[in-house]
Structure formats: structure tokens, C-alpha cells
């Protein structure tokens, strides 16, 4: 099968069910994610704060974590650090959802160990392809390259400013 030829998005290898954990204190955002991911056959788990998100991640071992940064209580940075320190959750790729405008905030997410970031406001339709592309590259063992690209991208942005 050749996806390249018909112009469609290349079908990702079937991983079976893909599950995404969304950690955000804003209910509308969580709903937004759920609706649009489920529309493309991705299961969604929700947590309204950092603590609940950590528990859920450990229990359910999602394939990807969408993580809001600014939350009361445990914020996104702390949650990411704990996920990466825990053997059970270390392998789960983290995509930060950030409303922070500064580049340094985006860089910080990548520094901590996140593989990508999405800046609010975002087009919810792009979430599913993002998740699938990410997983595909990670499956190909390109996790570190991915981060490297993102950092380079960020650097270009910073320099251009």
C-alpha cells in the first residue's frame, strides 16, 4: 500500500487502540480534546488536576499525555517531572498544552523531557494527526530526533525574534 501515491495522510501502523490522557483544569479544554480525538478513534482519559493525572497515568499507561502547564496545585512542569522519574510512566511521550507565550516556557517543556508542545489556542482537528505522527516516529526510534527538531525549531523562532 502506498499512501504517498493517493495524497492521503500516510496510514500509521496499526497499534491497536491508542489512548491519550488529557490533564487540564479547564473542563471545556478537556471536552474539546475528547470530542476531537474520539472522532478519530483515539480513546481519551481525563484528569482535572495534576495529582489525578499522575494516578491515572500510572494506572492506565496511556500512549500519550496531553499536559496543561498552568494548573492550580501541581502544575504541568511538576507533573511531567514526576512522570519521567517514574519507571512505569517514563516511556510515555508528553505533549505540553501551553498558554504561555514566551519561548522559554516552550523550551522548558522540552528541557524537562516533553517531546512536543501545542500552544493555546490550537486547532483541535490537528490533535489526532499529531498524536499518530508522534507515535509513529517514536515507534521508529526517532524520539530523540523529534525533540532535537523541536528544539531547533524553537531556536530559529527565538533567533528570528
Amino acid at each position, binding site marked *: 500500500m502506498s499512501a504517498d501515491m493517493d495524497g492521503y495522510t500516510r496510514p500509521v501502523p496499526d497499534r491497536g487502540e491508542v489512548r491519550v490522557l488529557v490533564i487540564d483544569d*479547564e*473542563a*471545556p*479544554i478537556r*471536552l*474539546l480534546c475528547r*470530542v*476531537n480525538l474520539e*472522532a478519530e478513534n483515539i480513546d481519551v482519559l481525563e484528569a482535572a488536576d495534576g495529582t489525578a493525572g499522575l494516578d491515572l497515568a500510572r494506572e492506565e499507561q496511556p500512549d500519550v499525555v496531553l499536559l496543561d502547564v*498552568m*494548573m*492550580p*496545585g*501541581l*502544575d504541568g512542569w511538576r507533573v511531567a517531572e514526576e512522570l519521567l522519574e517514574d519507571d512505569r510512566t517514563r516511556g510515555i511521550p508528553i505533549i505540553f498544552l501551553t*498558554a*504561555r*507565550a*514566551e519561548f522559554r*516556557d516552550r523550551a522548558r517543556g522540552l528541557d524537562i523531557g516533553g517531546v512536543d508542545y501545542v500552544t*493555546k*489556542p*490550537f*486547532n*483541535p*482537528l490537528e490533535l489526532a494527526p499529531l498524536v499518530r505522527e508522534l507515535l509513529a516516529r517514536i515507534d521508529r526510534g526517532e524520539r530523540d530526533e523529534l525533540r532535537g527538531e523541536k528544539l531547533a525549531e524553537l531556536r530559529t523562532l527565538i533567533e528570528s525574534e
Partner: protein
Amino acid sequence: MPGPGLAGPDAAPYNLHGPVRTPDLLPTVRALGRAAAAVALLPAVLRRSSSGRRADPTRELESVSRVADELARTADVEGVARTLLDELAELFDLGFAALTIVSDDGREATGYLARSGGEDVDWWREMHLDLEREPSGIASVVFEATAMTVYDTASSGVVSRRLAEAVGARSAAFVPLLVEERVTAVISVATLDEPRVFSNDDLAVMQTLASEAAVAFERLRAGVALEEALKRNEEQLAQQAALLRAAHVLSSELDLPVVLQRLADQLAQLLDADAADCYLLDAERGLFRCVAVHGFDRSLLDFEFPLGQGLAGAAVREGRPLIESAYRELPEPVPHPAYDGFTDVITAPMFWSDEVRGVIGVGRREGRRFVERDAEILGAFAGLASLALRNAEMFTQSARQARVQRGFYRIASVLGQSLSRAATLEAIAQAAAEALGGTSAAVLVPSSGRLEAVGTYELPADLAHLLDERAWDSRSPLFRATVEGRIVVSRAIAEDERMLPDLRAASAANGYLSLISVPVDAPRDAGRGLVLIFFAEQRSFDDDDLDLARHLADATRGALERSELFEAERGARALAQQLTRTGRLLTSELDPAAVLDEVVQQAPALVNAEAGAFRLLEGDELVVTAAGGEGAEAVLGSRSPASGWLSGDVLQSGAPVALAQAGDDERLRGLDPMLQAGHSAFLGVPVGGAEGVTLGVLAVYASVPREWREEEIEALLAVAASTSAALSNAELYQRVALERERSVAILANIAEGIVAVDRDGKVVLWNSAAELITGVSASVALGRAPVDVLQRSLESADEAARGERLVPIPRGREEVWLSVTEAVMRDPLGAVAGRIFAFRDISGDRLVEQVKSDFVSTVSHELRTPLTSIYGFAETLLRQDVMFGEEERQTFLRYIASESQRLTSIVDTLLNVARLDTGDLQVHLAETDVRDVVGQVLDTVTAAEANGHRFVVHLPEEPLAATADPEKLRQVCSILVENALRYSPDGGTVTVGAVRRQDTVEVSVADEGIGIPQSDQEQIFRKFYRGSDAELRAGAGGTGLGLFIARGLVTAMGGRIWVSSQEGEGSRFAFELPAAIADSVETER
């Protein structure tokens, strides 16, 4: 019959003849005479011994007189010897004393008696010495016939080893017993434990005792004969007793006139005469002079008659006593009426060393005849008298010798000590006066062409003044004699034409009749001085005196040399000390003017001058810039040409100029006001400046002419060197001080904090801006490391990075951000010698920046969150691939609506802030029931927002009216409630209340949350401010504008807002608004 051997050939001088001569008696009398002579000598000896160093002359006196007494009384040779030895041992603190008899031929010696520790040393009696074969102290003394001492017997080649060892002697002295210049015996004394020096004094006393003993032994031998003679002639008993008594009486007196008087008295009594007289011969004039009378009028005394006249002349011619029973018929009677009426007379000549010395005579008036025996007795008495005469003469001579000797000792002892010049000169004056028996004395030494009285002894003030004031120039014969090295004696100053009148007058005024002037060579060819001795009596000077005077001159020169050495040494030491002091003083002085003032005070003191001046070279003139001492006031500022004399010479030559009498030169006086002011001696040295340039001239002055000694010149040069060093120091310091003052002024006035640390990292500079910025005063910071006072190091951790760095430091409870730049100072070797930090307080800037940045991201977040929902749900609804149910679509649309409203409210808030900032806030005050507003706010708190919180509401039953803008009031309440929820993330109770106070309504919102630190409670009402660690602890969102807006609104409504909070326990925010008047009216209704 004559006793064997007792009348020796030495009887000859008496030359007695006659039929009734008793040969045995003569030696006896002679012996008695010698004993008397010996005893008579004692006082002289005593006086001599008392001049020695022994502590107790009284004791010596007693001792010697006891010996003399013992010797005079005893008939026991061994007893005499024992007494003698014991006295010697005790007197000189000796362990051993012995007497050894020398054989007549002087070839051997036999121990006679030895004493040690109060016991006889028995073996000494068996001791025999072969004087010719065995070396010994005794042998030496026998051959030399003088005393000798041995300090260390062990190392001496003179003493007998065996005897020294047997005795255990350390130091020894040997004294001969001389009879007729032959050594008949030797006294040996020794110390057993400690070595000691036997002084000449000691020997003199021993010698005296030895002579005493010698005479006593002779007398004993004679005494035995005398007793025999007495036994043979009972008739003579009384006379002999009288004779002995007379001898005793005579021997106890030394004064010649008294001796002779006693003689006359005794004679008259002994021979039962009516009168007795005694004449002495004045050989030069060939006259007899009457010196003692008995039974005559005293007017006879001093009567003189020619040598050959009368019976006396005949007796002298015949050399024996003559009896005249027909005195009146004498062809050539002594021409004096006192002799009229005498019938019977005996006259006996007195001989001494075969020379006639005088005559004695007795006479009777009533025809009682003298017999030949009487003549013999008179002859014996004549012998006795000549002995007494000789004794007295010897005494006088001894006394003089003793005095001379004492003078020598005195001078010697002065010589022996290192005394200051002044002390030496005074000691010389005293020694001179004592040695020659003068009343007072003065020592004058040459100084700048004149003589200066520098040492005096008992000199009356007017004479001293005279000697001091008087110019001892060539007018004075004394001065001339001194220059020529002649001794001048003046028996009668008052009539002496050679003395200047004022000296004669002053001498007379003080009762001085005679003087002697002895020239003394001053050391180092500095000319001659003189010793001047005054005598209260008319004094003639014999050879002894002149000898003594010459000796005195030698001794004085020696003493002066010695004291000069001593003075030089002491002077050098004092100079060195003074120099050190001066140097220290100068180097500690940091003001050039003060240095010079110090120098002109110190320099004269250093060299015994009276004034000092420093002249600074200015162009081609020398200007006096500092002066001290007499005349200093007038000279300050005076100018002289740099090419002139004196100071100019010093300047030109670059070498010291020393003049003893510069003040005498008119031209020099004209050039130097100090000389004009009366100073005479000048000493100037150059003072060097930097790079070999001569800076000026340092000069010292003395008011009297004086020579400048080499070391004084050296010392002044040293002061000059110190001065130039001190001047450089001081000038350098002044420059540095000026620089420093300038720096300090700059540092004090700049806004930047400046901190300097030394190589040890300790603060050495902390300017006032640094105090202000850090809140740490300089007094606290100085000497400590910055990290100790700031809790944060200012130093860059990275040696390479020296740019501007941000360093936060705590100031009280707040944190201050410093922008620090750092400079490292290095020493020539490259080591860090210190650092200087300059810093600004950028806390304000930084806070604004930080807060702005936070605000931007916060606002961004606050805006983006609702935007995300609106945009996201819109996109979602537009999806083609998913068909949403109606319910879902409704949900999406509702979110779009509510989030849009949220966006509006955020924008409102921002607008509010903008209005508050510009003062454009509009409030519409109306009577408002606070209860209603609070209720509305609580109603809008969604369940989700209230998550985990419990609300407690305290509101009154009746309306609670305040004058307020209801919308603004709602906003304030809303902000406080939201904050309460946000800052108590762990839930808890939120208590909301409203209550009527006096004229106000108070609304409060209390939570049980994280609380607010005391330091933040003022800040939280400021724009953009959020609790410093609120984000960390609560992750709390918010714009940081809530409380700023709340306060703005409350204030605009005429109220006030405050907070009370305990960190970790919660906060209570409250505000009050004016109570509505309508309300009060309503209440009244």
C-alpha cells in the same frame, strides 16, 4: 759588769762619756726611746690606714693601739708575737698568720709562732727554711727588705710550694721586721678560702705593726738588761721609774712643743731642779731657740742665742753633758735675765745622726750641787728628747706622706672609674684639694681659646663666678704659666704681684692666703688646663708638694682622657638613642611643616646646641621656613643669598660647615640673623631632597663659642638624612591623602554602591550608596567579608566572566537585586591584591520587569484559555467528518458563549486597571444594601469553583446600607472571594461577613489558606504583585491585578481596605465603606 752584747756600736751617736757612766743603762734607754718612737708613729699610720678602703677605721685604730699597748707592756716575746698575729688575722680577716725569725747571717729562717683560727700552729715551730736554696716568700722579703704580696700562691713562683700547701694558703702577704735595716724576722699572712688583694693600705698597716713588733722585740731584749741594771742599783730605782714614766709620757705625745714641754717638766722633777729648759738649733742661722721651759717665765720661749755661747756651747763642743757649779761666774753666760740667780746648772746636747739638734738644761738657785749621776740622767734625757724630736719630725713627715699617699689613692681611684667628665673634674678638684691639704680647688680646661672652670671643690660662689666669667687670656700670668706648663705657687696671694687684682681681692675676701696652680695637659692636644688649689693658711710648698702636684697633673690628664673616652662612648650612645627617637618622631610625622618644626626642636637638643633653623632653597635664596630656640621668632621667613657664606657654603659644598665662633665675625652676623640674635657657634648640614637635589640647610647654633665634635656633626647629618626621608614621606602622604580625600568625596557622592575588599577579601571601603542599597552600615561591614554581611558573595564565581551580574541579596525581609560589576586589582606579581565592586539596586527595575513579564504571561494565559475553547469548539462544530448530536452541539455553543463572557470580564478588568492608572475610574455612588451584593457574588460561585470549600456567611437580618457603586462593590467582593478560594488550595472554610460599624459598613472575607507573609502584606495591593511564592505554593493563576483593582475601587468609593494574615493559617481581607445616611435616617424612622 756590762751585760754581754747589749751596748752595741750604735750607742756612739750619743757619745756619752764620764766616770759614772752606767753602760748597761744606755741601750735600755735607747730601746725605750725606740719603743716610744714606734708608738708615736702610730697615729700617723692610723690616719693613713683610715684613708684606705677598710670599712672601720675606728676598729683599726683600736686594734693598733691595743697592739701598741700590749707591746709596750709585755715582757713576753711570744705573747707579743701572738697578740700581733691574732690582731693581724682579725684585722684583715685572715686564716693564717705567722712569725718567722731570720738568723743573724740571713741565710736561714726558723718558724717562731703561727696562728690559725685562734690556735697555735704547732708545726711552724719546727719549720726551717734555707733562704739561699729554697724559693719562698720569706726569702724574697729577707733579700728585698720590703713587703710583698702574692695573689695566687698556686701559680706563684716566689712562694714555697710546700709551705703554701701545708698552710693551705690562697693569697699571701709577707712583711719584714726591720732592725737597723736588717730583716730580723718576717710576718707571713695568708687567706685560706678566698683569694684577696692586699692593698697598699693593708701593707702599710701591716708594715707599721711589724715595725712595732720589731721595736718591741728590741725593747724586750733591752728591757731584760734594764731590769738587771735596776737590780744592781737600788738607789737608781726611783729615777729609773721616773725615767720610764717620762719615757711613757713622752711617747704618748706627738706634738713637738708638747713633747718638749713634758720633757722639761719631767726633767725638773726628776733632777729636783728649780728650772729646766730646752733649746732647738736653727742650723741655718746658727742659733739656739728656746722651745720649752719649766720654772721660767714663758716669755723666755722663742728666745735665741748663738750656737757657741754659754755652757750650752761648751756642752755641744764637748758632745756631753756638763755640770757647772759656779754658773754666775761663767765667762759667756746666756744673755737673758731669766738665767740670773742660778748657781748650779747641767746642760746636755741633743744629737741626732751625729748632728747637734739642740740642748736641754736644768738649774738650781740655792747652791745645791748636781752630781755626775744627774748629768748622766740628763744625758739620757737628751737622747730621749732627740728621739722624741725625731719622732715628732717623723710624724709630721709621715702625716704628710700619708696625706700625699691618700691624695695619690684618691686620684688613682678617680682614675680607676669611668666617670662622666663633670664627675671626673669634680673628683679631680676634690682629690687635688685633699692631696695638698687645700681648702678648695678648681679645675679649668681649655675651651675655644679660653679656660673654663668646669670642676670645683668647695669653691666659694664668688671665686667660682670670677673663674667662670673671667677671660683667661694672656693678661693673666696664671694663664701664661699654664700655657708654658709651669707650676705657680703663691705663698701670699694678697701681696703677689703675679696675680690679677680681682683674684687677689676675691681670695682675700674668702680668707685664702696661698694657692698653687698646676698645669694639666688636656687630652688630644687640646691645650693645657690647670688645677687651682686654694689654702686658708699661709702655706709653703716643699718638694713633696711639687711632686704631688706633678703627679696630680699626670693623674688629671689620665682621668680626663678616660672620662673623655667615657663621655664619647656615652655621648655616642645618647646620640644614637636620640637619633633613633628623632628618626621615629620624624617618620611618624606626616605634615611637612610639622616635620621641619620637629627637626628644629630636636636637632639642637641632639648636639647640645640651643637653637636650630631650617633654610629652604627657593630659587637663588635660602628662606628660613622653620626655627626653634632663642631668636627663632625673628629669623622665620628671613632670606639670604644661596651663594652667601655659612648656610650658602653648606649648600654650595654639600658638606657640613662647623664654626666655633661664627658670631664674632661681623660679616657672618650680617648674613645670619641667628648670629645677630647672639648665637656664636654654627653648625650647618645640607638636607637632601629627591634625586640628589639639595633641598635646604639645617643649622644649629650655640650661644657660647664651642667646638663641634665629629660625632655631633655626624649626628646632625643623620638628622638631615632623617629629615629628607621624613619630608619625602610627608609630601607623599599629603599627595596620597589629597587623592584619597578626593576619592572618598567622589565615592560618597555617587549613586553606585562601591565596595572594595583587600587581598583577604575583607571590606576596606563601603561607601554611603553601598550602605543605602544594602542596608548595612560601613561600620558593620568594614573588616569583614561581604558574604558575611550580605549573606551572598559579590565575587564572580567564574574568573573569566566579569560582566554585569545580577546578585540578589536580602535586605531586611525583602530581597534586593544588585547589578554588580567587578574589578580585580593585582599586585606587580599578578596576585590578586583586592577587588572593587560597583553595584546598582535594580530591584525596582527588576520587579517591574518580572512583574510585567509575569503579567504578560498571566494575561496571555487568561486570554488564551477562553480563546482556545471558543476557537476549538467553533472548529469542532465545523468538522465535516463527525456528526454531533444536538445535545453536544448545545454544549459546545454554551461553552463558546460562557468563555466569550469570561473573555469580556478579563478585558473589563484590564480596562479598570487602565482607568485606575489614569484616574478615569467613574463611580456612581448610591445607597446600596451590602447584603444583596454579597449574596449575588456567592451565588455566582460555581460548584466547581467552590470545590472542597465550605462557605460560612454572616449577614445581618436588616438591610445594611452603604454609600457605594453596586457594580464596583460586586467586583470587589468577587475578587476577594476568588482570592480566598485560589489561595486556599487545600479547601477549608471561607467566611464571608458584613457588619455595621460606627459610621461604616465593614465587609470581610476570611480563608484558611496559605496566608501571606508579613513582608508581603503591604505589597499585595500593588499592581501586578502576587504573593512572592504564591505561584510556587498554589500554582495559582490570576492576573495579579485583583487586589490592586479592589483597593482602587474601595478607595474610589471613599473606603479603605486592609488585610490581616498569618502565614500558613489563612488571611482575612476586609474593607469598609461609608454607611449610607439614608440608612441612619431609616433607622431613625
